[in-house]
Each structure stands twice: as structure tokens, then as C-alpha cells.
């Protein structure tokens, strides 16, 4: 039996997540096979609908790599993101989707190792949860 290879959509803020991903790539660190990186100018650009659409369109899990709180270049972007992720999770609960399928992680530009560790842990977690039943 083939091992389930969960699809992860990772939204990456250009001020933190994108440089962290580039560092991971430069260091040739192990990345999940089924990964789609979506760069955004600020995590505050991510609307609740993008998060749901990612799940609706085939993601087994969605992660957002954002700057640390109080470290947003646009001041409030990651705070707004937090509200939207909270709202998306409320909707997911109504659908019956596990909360773990959507998560925010705070990283800095030099968090290449942390970036891949988070993603590889997410792969393990999603393998245990199984495929997204709503995709």
C-alpha cells in the first residue's frame, strides 16, 4: 500500500516565510514532496476565503508562515491574519474538519531549519489525520 502523501499549501509572507523558504532551499534541507508555496506581500493579505479555498481545492493541510507578532512590516497584518484564521477554524468546525488542518507559524528571515522542521512535522500529523474528507 502506498503511503499517503498529504498536500500542504503554505502561504508565506515575503518578509519572513519567503526568505526562510529560500534559506531552507539554499541549505538543501528536506522538504515535503507535495508542497505548494504561495508568496504573499504580507500575511494580512490572506483573506479567510483563500484559506477555505485551499482546503476546498485539494489541500490536506494549510499553513501560514508569518512574521512574529509586533514584528509586522505593515504593523497589523499578522494580527489581522490571526482573526481570519480563527474565523476559518470556526467554519471548519461547522464542516467537521479538524483544526490541525490550518495553522499559523511565526518565523524570521533566517528560520530555514525551523521552516522545514515545521513542514515535516505537519506531514506526519496530516498522515495520521488522513486525507481531507472535504476536498
Amino acid at each position: 500500500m502506498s503511503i499517503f502523501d498529504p498536500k500542504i499549501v503554505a502561504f508565506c509572507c515575503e518578509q519572513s516565510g519567503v526568505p526562510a523558504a529560500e534559506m531552507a532551499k539554499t541549505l538543501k534541507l528536506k522538504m515535503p514532496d507535495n508542497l505548494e508555496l504561495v508568496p504573499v506581500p504580507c500575511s494580512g493579505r490572506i483573506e479567510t476565503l483563500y484559506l477555505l479555498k485551499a482546503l476546498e481545492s485539494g489541500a490536506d493541510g494549510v499553513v501560514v508562515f508569518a512574521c512574529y507578532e509586533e514584528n509586522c512590516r505593515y504593523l497589523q497584518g499578522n494580527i489581522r491574519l490571526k482573526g481570519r484564521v480563527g474565523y476559518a477554524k470556526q467554519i471548519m468546525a461547522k464542516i467537521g474538519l479538524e483544526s490541525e488542518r490550518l495553522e499559523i507559524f511565526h518565523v524570521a528571515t533566517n528560520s530555514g531549519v525551523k521552516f522545514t522542521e515545521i513542514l515535516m512535522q505537519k506531514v506526519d500529523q496530516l498522515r495520521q489525520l488522513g486525507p481531507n474528507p472535504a476536498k
Partner: protein
Amino acid sequence: MIKAEQKPFEEILEYLAPYGKILLSGCGACVTVCNAGGEKDGALLASALRMARRKMGKPIEILESTPARQCEPEFAQELTDTIGKVEAVLSVSCGVGVQTLARYFPATQIFPGVNTTFMGETVAHGVWEERCQACGNCILEKTAGICPIARCAKQLLNGPCGGSSKGKCEIKRETDCAWQLIYDRSKSLGQLHRLSAIIPAKQWGVESRDSGPRSIVREDLKV
């Protein structure tokens, strides 16, 4: 503007259970402003419904459309072609828009996706409060611009009642007493003397909807 909030998700799923293809119709006016039934809110609900139905093993196809104002016939009629392709409509406009669709599309089942709640004001981002109950004869000139019909729990015309305490209403302690607000604003306007005039009882049976649904007719505008 009219304020509304989305109906419980389970309730919506229940209405839609017999259908495999629907239109989710939003409205670009009031319900967009209160984030209950605009284009984005409709898209979010449609996405959630599609996922919930897939998970139940009964997928549903949802077309989406958001007329500028669903309560105006010329905008509602824009939906004619789309409605011809679906089995039912879920409307996330206010109850007026739902009824406009019901009037124009007699052969189609139209379900409400929101609870129309009140006419109110945006007091902060994400916070809306009731301000008017369309009583039919506005008395704001007598009450310093603060409505006792919509904002006093007892709709007192000559308040406050004995339960007003520290500026809060006895019915709901977290709510400001409307008559305290009226008093304070009258005082700051230097108009306290106006409050000594008794406001006569309203003609509820004549002015308000106690005498049945109301209508306004302007002969000069008819075509």
C-alpha cells in the same frame, strides 16, 4: 442600514439537503456592509457548503452571484438566466431581497441564508447596534437625536424608568440607558428644557405596522 447575520450552518444544510445544484445569491448593499451576505461572505459560505456536502458524500454544485441590490427588481431580474439553471436559491440578502426573488421567480424555491436582525449603525469595525425601528413617525427632534423606540428596552416616550442605574439599562446591564443618553446629550446641547414637554403617545395603529404592512406611493414617480 439593514443588519443581518448568517443563519446557523446546520439549518442551511438542512434546507439544501434535497438539492444538487443551487444559486447562492448575495446582495451588494446593506448585507455587504455588515459582512453577512456580500460577495465575499457568499463565496465563503458557498465554499463551506461545498466542502460539507462532499464530506457527507452528497456533493452540491453552487453558482454564485451578487446583484448590486437584490431588493430592486431590475437587479434581481439579472439573475433570470442563472436561476433557470438551478433547482433552488439560497439568498443571503435581507428578507426584503429574498421576497423580491420570490416575487419574480414564482417557480423557484428561495431559502434565506441570513437572519435579518435590525436597522442599525456600525459603531466600531465588526460591531453593529440597533438604532431605528421604522416606527413611521420619527420623534428624534424631541429626543436629542437618540431613538427611545429602538434603544429603550421599554420604548418609553417619557423616560427614564425607575430601573436606570449608573447610565445602564435595567433590562440589559451592559447596554446604555437610552434615556440617560437623551438626558446627557440634551444637557450638553443646552436643550434640557425641551425634556419638560411631554411626548404624546404614538399612534401605533395608524403610523406603524400595527395596522398591517405599510406602503408608500409616489404618483409623480410612477411610470
